[in-house]
């Protein structure tokens, strides 16, 4: 029990008091944002909003939403029952540090193809690959976690682009997390190359006529709030910090409704050009007494076609309903289940590799003593 609970007792009281006061100010801020959002909608429709151009130049300070063609404070329900098929992917990885006995960098990518109303069990593909270097040899060096994550992200969309099956129905592809890659592109050549590959794969999904959505559960973004802060920066003392877009759309969206589609303005937006331009909307996948807001990222090619948007909207609601009181797309959960690599599997793979290396007469380095010491069994009681 390394935590000093006696030490923490008064701090827990402080924590609660601070949370109480923050909550009070949050409610006021949410009201203020809702007023500004309605005002923004009115000004856009009446043509009186002049300084929207301030949102146009992407830079680090301006990671925000930008109004698209729909009214920014409007919500949209669907009432269609169109047929579609779904493809989702997820990935997991094994990374190593120099403390490990063997450097292992591996990605495990799963894909799941689900045909609603087919009475067929979903099809599943899982691909496990060691990470290779530029010469296409399995990398025996320790690779940074960031790079492995990027390789995994590219492979996940690869699964969505490259799995072919016969269907006449629209294909909706769903990935877990945003379509905008975190911190990408970066300066180094291998990152740049992977990012380029990512964009090409997105383009392939577009060319295949598939609809792509990045599902972000419990979003923390404040893109719409930031948009309002920029538009109404002339209001003195405007402080909208500490709240997120989800706080706003909890109030604004009824269960099953989505927000307007916004364009995503970010430092990397310029890299997603033409049909790949990033857009998003919020969606309430919860129930009347228990709303739950998620963010869905889409590309321009999907955003520009209202039929596609409706299909994606419907598919996500259908999938979330399957999970009952804790709505989350069933297909994404299953893709995660099929992809996730647990620590014991890393240990099994290490043992398998060690055995094969020993049989080949290759000497194996041992793990660091620091790592071994951390794994020592806790003291046990004598029986």
């Amino acid at each position, binding site marked *: 029990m390394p935590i000093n609970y006696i030490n923490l007792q008064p701090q827990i009281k402080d924590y609660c008091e601070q949370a109480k006061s923050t909550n009070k100010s949050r409610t006021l801020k949410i009201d203020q944002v809702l007023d500004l959002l309605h005002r923004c909608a009115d000004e856009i429709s009446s043509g009186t909003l002049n300084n929207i151009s301030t949102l146009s130049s992407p830079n680090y300070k301006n990671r925000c939403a930008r109004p698209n063609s729909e009214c920014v404070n409007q919500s949209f329900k669907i009432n269609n029952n169109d047929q579609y098929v779904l493809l989702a992917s997820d990935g997991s990885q094994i990374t190593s540090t120099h403390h490990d006995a063997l450097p292992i960098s591996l990605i495990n990518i799963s894909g799941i193809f689900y045909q609603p109303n087919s009475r067929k*069990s979903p099809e599943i593909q899982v691909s496990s690959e060691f990470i290779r270097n530029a010469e296409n040899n399995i990398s025996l060096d320790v690779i940074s976690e960031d790079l492995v994550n990027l390789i995994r992200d590219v492979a996940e969309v690869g699964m969505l682009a490259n799995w072919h099956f016969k269907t006449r129905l629209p294909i909706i592809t769903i990935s877990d997390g945003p379509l905008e890659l975190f911190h990408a592109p970066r300066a180094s050549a291998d990152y740049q190359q992977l990012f380029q590959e990512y964009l090409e794969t997105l383009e392939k999904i577009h060319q295949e006529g598939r609809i792509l959505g990045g599902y972000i559960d419990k979003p923390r973004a404040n893109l719409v709030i930031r948009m309002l802060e920029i538009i109404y920066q002339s209001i003195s003392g405007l402080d909208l910090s500490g709240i997120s877009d989800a706080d706003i759309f909890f109030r604004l969206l009824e269960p099953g409704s989505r927000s307007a589609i916004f364009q995503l303005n970010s430092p990397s937006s310029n890299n997603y050009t033409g049909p790949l331009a990033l857009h998003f909307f919020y969606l309430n996948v919860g129930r009347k007494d228990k709303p739950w807001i998620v963010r869905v990222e889409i590309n321009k090619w999907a955003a520009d076609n209202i039929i596609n948007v409706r299909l994606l909207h419907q598919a996500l609601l259908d999938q979330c309903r399957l999970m009952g009181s*804790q709505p989350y797309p069933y297909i994404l959960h299953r893709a995660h289940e099929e992809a996730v690599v647990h620590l014991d599997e890393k240990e099994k793979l290490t043992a398998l590799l060690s055995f094969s290396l020993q049989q080949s007469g290759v000497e194996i380095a041992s793990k660091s003593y620091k790592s071994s010491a951390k794994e020592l069994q806790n003291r046990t009681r004598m029986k």
Partner: protein
Amino acid sequence: MNDITAGRLLRSNTRGCVVGCHVSQPAPVFGSMINIPTKTGKVFGLVHDIHIDDDGLVRQLAAAGNLPDEVILDNRINRNVPVEMSIIFIGYSIENKISHSLPPRPPLSLDEMYICDPEDLRNFTNAGHFGYFRHVISRQDIPAGELLSAHLQAASTAQKVGGNPNWINEAIQEIIILLRDNHELMTNVLGAIGDAFPA
């Protein structure tokens, strides 16, 4: 002999074992006689419990209400949810010689289990003089009456086909003798047999 495997052994001891199988495999029913081939012969047993474990997703889906067929099939076919069967050992064979004693050594992990066909049933139940009943009757932790009743039904059918319709009467006589000092269990066992063989 039935040559389609009905599962693989997960864990065992001298008196019984637990076998796991996929839901799509031909699963034996409660009371089925099974055999597990070993290096020297076979171990015979009766299925006395079948259990299907849940997990977090299954619990959440069960509470979610109407589920489409695709989700049910996904959980039954794609997800790794084995059906587990508990087996009580009732005998073994070495070089085709059947004994109604407990096997000298339990089978090993991942050994395959097969459902006994009527011929296997006849061969086993004709060997000796119902000595295997004691393994069932002596176990306090299994539904002995129900298990014997299910087994007698299957064995009696196999014996009738083999031209021995009197086998069931001999079996019941033996059970009465074995349980003459345990009135409560005898009532229980005979009640279950009575339900299985209505007059």
